[in-house]
């Protein structure tokens, strides 16, 4: 108990230290020499002022717009002779008067807005900015990135590649020193999980430890990048972006066949299809000249969303709903903007009008898709338009689609109507309230949609998206990839690069990477390799007092972030260590063990997914990404580890720490079975108990245990063995878990003791952290 209390106090101490350091930055920090609109002023304006004085024409107060210089400098409509901002003259600027007033009738933001008054520091920032000329700048993310020269650094020896120049320059500026390279065992664990989602095998660990050459690490990276598991690892993130699921969602939530699209994604990552092509196919593969079935299959991306099969729905209401979902997925997942606000009104923070929104939606409005194709009794595995994939196709072009069945597969894909369907602004976003007609066009605040260059259809949209001058596409993807490896993006709000999004921690690095990515043919594997071979990535994760004081959030990366594995890779970890993992790639999703009754309790009773029919044999041991996702009841052991529920496009997962996660690792039969099967395997080997425990520890934690750790684990084993031998614990009952056959040749008491020892190791915090 005391120890627990000590832990608690320690955490609080950490927070207090951190917080006082933050506060210091705010209250005592001197004003910047040059106040920047983008970095200092705009975040405050956007957060506190734009709601009423921003781009939304429908809710603009007093005719004042503070997001545009001309409007902010113009005479105020309602206060004769006054100006919101007079460049160079804070004392004459009404804005300063308003934000510093204590009179509730005058002060801005108004008390009713609940936005809170500006701090003195913020007010001083405004004064200084106006004094310095109140210069506006275009939003950083809406101007095309350029490569800045690599910054100079002192500690040249530390640098492995260009990334490190940017990281180190900032560290040196902050007076932080980067950590040394992680030891080889931990580095291998990290890079193995990051590139394949799997722990390294003992053979791989031994090989890497024995390789003393300078190129050892790079060779290892190259080898891992060639494994087909790389595609599986990368696909998990993209499945979140594309809200992939195995059912239709909504109330009856029947089964659908969208997994061939998922198999294509795995294949595409493995084949290293350039990102511009990867996107073009998914947005408009069907519109490419001589489109192949593969091109068309990729457009399944836009059909992964939910479909209602609820009797009595209004077709058009849902057809529009699906268009809204497509628009959201495209903008959040690929462009990193939150344009959905403009569905009902002009965006309050970003320069996106409601008309912009519906012009974008118009690209998707020309498909043959319906809002409703009948209720659950008429349910089909795909909804129109449908791509049929024959057994013949699977022998040829689409040979990566894993199906033993000879029947044709049906997948929902995109397909255009012959005649153009008109699109209207929908007033308040309501499907039956059409307003003015709009033409398809992409968001002009991001980049002009030049109809001389781009046709007004999805193919034009795809070309606009991957155009070299599009300021967002490369930045957003590079940032998502960075997030995969460092836990958070250089722009932390990876789904929002707009005004309300966070600013990049390393803006020059982000831009350098984005431009470099485009210059090198949008080569994803190259980008990944760049990241994992950087010194920044290879650092140890040791947290020092200096780190906690100066950079508790690890913004500057003076250490590698310790990160909990994603839900899928936790499953892969215990299956892989135990030897149970079946490494088949792709195919229909599988239904492993799941607590009884949870589908049934939440089901309407209709459709083939009303009851959970658990799979058997090999299907029990497939990787986490193949777990069947029923949208209304996604796998609970995944959701509890923060997996996306796939309801909508998600670009970032939370990483929480809850007691339910502890319960899973202790009690989920899948983890217990893996413990038993690994115990069986180890017990069958010619080795001492110490060697067996040692091996289990290496397999799961991916390093040699320390002497103390060995002692603790061994003591637990001895204690358990004795309890089993004295029949204080029942070995037969303990071993009775999972469908994998029990090896009855082995001594049951010993086996149970090893099993429980292994389960304890699986429960170590370090087991699920890379």
């Amino acid at each position, binding site marked *: 108990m005391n120890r627990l209390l000590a832990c608690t106090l320690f955490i609080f101490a950490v927070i207090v230290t951190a917080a006082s350091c933050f506060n210091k930055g705010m209250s005592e920090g001197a004003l910047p020499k040059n106040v920047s609109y983008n970095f200092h002023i705009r975040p405050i304006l956007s957060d506190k002022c734009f709601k009423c004085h921003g781009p939304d024409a429908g809710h603009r107060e007093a005719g004042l717009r503070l997001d545009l210089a001309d409007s902010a400098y113009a005479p105020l409509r309602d206060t004769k002779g006054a100006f919101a901002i007079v460049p160079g003259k804070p004392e004459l600027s009404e804005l300063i008067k308003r934000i510093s007033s204590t009179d509730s009738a005058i002060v801005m933001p108004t008390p009713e807005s609940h936005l809170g008054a500006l701090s003195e520091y913020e007010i001083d920032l405004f004064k200084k900015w106006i004094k310095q000329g109140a210069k506006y700048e275009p939003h950083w993310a809406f101007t095309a990135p350029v490569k800045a020269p690599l910054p100079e650094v002192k500690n040249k020896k530390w640098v492995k590649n260009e990334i490190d120049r940017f990281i180190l320059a900032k560290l040196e500026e902050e007076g932080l020193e980067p950590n040394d390279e992680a030891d080889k065992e931990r580095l291998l664990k990290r890079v193995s999980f990051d590139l394949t989602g799997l722990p390294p095998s003992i053979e791989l660990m031994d090989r890497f430890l024995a390789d003393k050459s300078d190129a050892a690490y790079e060779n290892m990276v190259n080898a891992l990048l060639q494994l087909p598991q790389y595609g599986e690892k990368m696909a998990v993130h993209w499945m979140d972006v594309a809200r992939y699921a195995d059912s239709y969602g909504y109330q009856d939530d029947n089964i659908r066949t969208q997994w061939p699209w998922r198999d294509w994604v795995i294949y595409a990552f493995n084949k290293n299809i350039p990102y511009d092509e990867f996107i073009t196919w998914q947005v408009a593969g069907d519109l490419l000249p001589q489109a192949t079935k593969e091109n068309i299959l990729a457009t399944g991306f836009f059909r992964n969303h939910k479909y209602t099969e609820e009797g009595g729905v209004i077709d058009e209401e849902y057809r529009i709903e699906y268009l809204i979902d497509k628009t959201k997925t495209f903008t959040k997942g690929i462009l990193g903007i939150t344009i959905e606000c403009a569905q009902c009104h002009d965006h309050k923070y970003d320069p996106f009008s409601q008309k912009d929104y519906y012009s974008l939606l118009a690209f998707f409005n020309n498909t043959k898709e319906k809002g409703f194709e009948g209720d659950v009794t008429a349910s089909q595995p795909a909804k129109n338009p449908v791509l049929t994939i024959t057994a013949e196709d699977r022998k040829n072009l689409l040979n990566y689609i894993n199906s033993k069945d000879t029947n044709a597969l049906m997948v929902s894909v995109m397909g255009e109507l012959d005649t153009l369907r008109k699109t209207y602004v929908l007033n308040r976003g309501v499907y039956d309230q059409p307003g003015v007609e709009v033409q398809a066009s992409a968001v002009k605040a991001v980049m002009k949609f030049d109809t001389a260059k781009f046709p007004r259809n999805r193919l034009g949209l795809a070309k606009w998206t991957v155009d070299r001058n599009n300021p967002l596409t490369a930045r957003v993807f590079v940032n998502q990839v960075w997030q995969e490896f460092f836990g958070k993006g250089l722009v932390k709000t990876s789904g929002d690069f707009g005004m309300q999004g966070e600013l990049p921690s390393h803006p020059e690095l982000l831009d350098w990477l984005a431009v470099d990515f485009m210059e090198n043919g949008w080569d994803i594997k190259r980008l990944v390799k760049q990241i994992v071979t950087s010194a920044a990535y290879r650092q140890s994760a040791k947290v020092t007092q200096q780190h906690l004081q100066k950079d508790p959030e690890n913004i500057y990366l003076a250490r590698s972030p310790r990160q909990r594995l994603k839900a899928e890779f936790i499953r892969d970890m215990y299956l892989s260590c135990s030897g149970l993992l079946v490494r088949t790639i792709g195919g229909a999703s599988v239904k492993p063990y799941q607590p*009884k009754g949870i589908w049934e309790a939440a089901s309407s009773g209709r459709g083939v997914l009303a009851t959970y029919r658990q799979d058997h044999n090999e299907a029990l041991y497939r990787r986490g990404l193949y777990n069947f996702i029923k949208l209304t009841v996604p796998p609970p052991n995944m959701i509890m580890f923060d997996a996306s529920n796939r309801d909508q496009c998600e670009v970032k997962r939370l990483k929480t720490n809850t007691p339910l996660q502890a319960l899973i690792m202790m009690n989920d039969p899948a983890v217990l079975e893996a413990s038993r099967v690994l115990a069986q395997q180890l017990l069958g080997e010619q080795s001492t108990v110490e060697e067996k425990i040692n091996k289990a520890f290496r397999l799961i934690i991916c390093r040699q245990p320390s002497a103390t750790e060995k002692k603790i684990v061994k003591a637990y084993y001895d204690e358990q063995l004795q309890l089993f031998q004295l029949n204080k614990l029942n070995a037969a009952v303990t071993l009775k878990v999972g469908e994998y056959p029990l090896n009855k040749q082995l001594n049951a008491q010993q086996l149970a003791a090893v099993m429980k020892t292994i389960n304890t190791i699986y429960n170590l915090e370090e087991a699920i952290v890379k």
Partner: protein
Amino acid sequence: MQKEFLEHKLNINRRRFLTQVGMGIGGAALGSLLMPDLFGKSEEEMIMTGLPHFAPKAKRIIYLFQNGAPSQLDLFDYKPMLQQMYGQDLPASIRMGQRLTGMTAGQEKFPLAGTAFQFNQYGAARAWISELLPHTSKVVDDLCIVRSMYTEAINHDPALTFFQTGAQVGNRPSMGSWLSYGLGSENKNLPAFCVLLSRGRGNGQGVYSKLWSNGFLDSFHQGVQFSSGDNPVLYLNNPEGIDKADRRRMLDKLAALNDESYKEFGDPEITAKVQQYEMAYRMQTAVPDITDLSKEPEDIIKLYGPDCLTPGTYAANCLLARKLSENGVRFIQLYHQGWDGHNNLPSEIKGQCQDVDQASAALITDLKQRGLLDETLVIWGGEFGRTNYCQGVLTKENYGRDHHPRCFTIWMAGGGVKPGVYGETDEFGYNIIKDPVHVHDFHATVLHLMGLDHEKLTFKYLGRRFRLTDVAGKVVNGLIA
């Protein structure tokens, strides 16, 4: 310039940092006693240290959700006109061209269907209540009956989602998650937000785990589903052969091993992990103690009815809800399926009422006798109402009713609500003519009763401050005592 920029970053990151270590602002408010200088002059401070925003009337909520939409016209909203005009077409002047679902939009006629059940008046408010609810009619003096609820959605999924999250689509946090986030937990061994499911014999509509999702809030605020099986919370039970003492042995070794890792890495996440294992261990004792209904005294069993001894029934869930609430669970969400009376409403609704009437009333009585009703808000109601006209063929014995979002009835009890009848519909029971209450207003009012200002309980996600009430909602003072 870089340096200042980063200072700015640090400032805006404080809240995130807190949520990583703590349990949302409710948890942080508690912690702030220990770390007063943590909250400087920021908007977070206003939210965090100001919770609740004002003195709460209720501390806990039990929401008895009647999933599928019970017919207000057969239970609470008595309309003799429908009997007088039995079988006649719904006048166009009443329908006013309002949209219908695809189930009945194609009907040539909309024959008015008066209820097949008797109504009587009860209590000080002389509230009309159907013979289907004999127990409810006895506690009517504790009920605040709202006959003027309305919603925007016309189908189950969006309507249910709207009631639970304040939006028809969008993966938003559920009501219970908002309350967990805003007020935290009163019990360190139990989740702040629990979910209980049951099903009647009537036409059912599924429920979905997204209804108790934490959305963009920390998953700590996710509703924890309790089930009727041997494992009351998923993965709670130790595997067979492992008892409490043995689990303790394992946890002690685990803590020692994690401590080794902590010594090496110094990562506070490691100690946080150890704490979560300890809470899991405490839950393993606390949850079965609470879910074991077998030790309840005779008079309680009698009060809730014999069904309450069958796990997974609505009655058992009501009793369990009382126990959870008594133990400090902030928000308990029940769902009872089977109210979707499109075709055989009279017979189906009888069965549904048999399931829920006695136990719902018992919950009120039980809370009251324990002195807990004042601080516990009980809510009873579905996602929309049902039409006054018949879906399908109208006969003397049978009728069906389609979805009707324009008016329906819910009731609330305890927790600072004003007993009586609120709002009024027209004589056809089709439109509201007095005191309409929108779902957003309902949410605003419920939060208000819990001491929260619905406009201030916000979470900034992807550049926008989200609220349970989205951009609307006003507190309905007429519902508050």
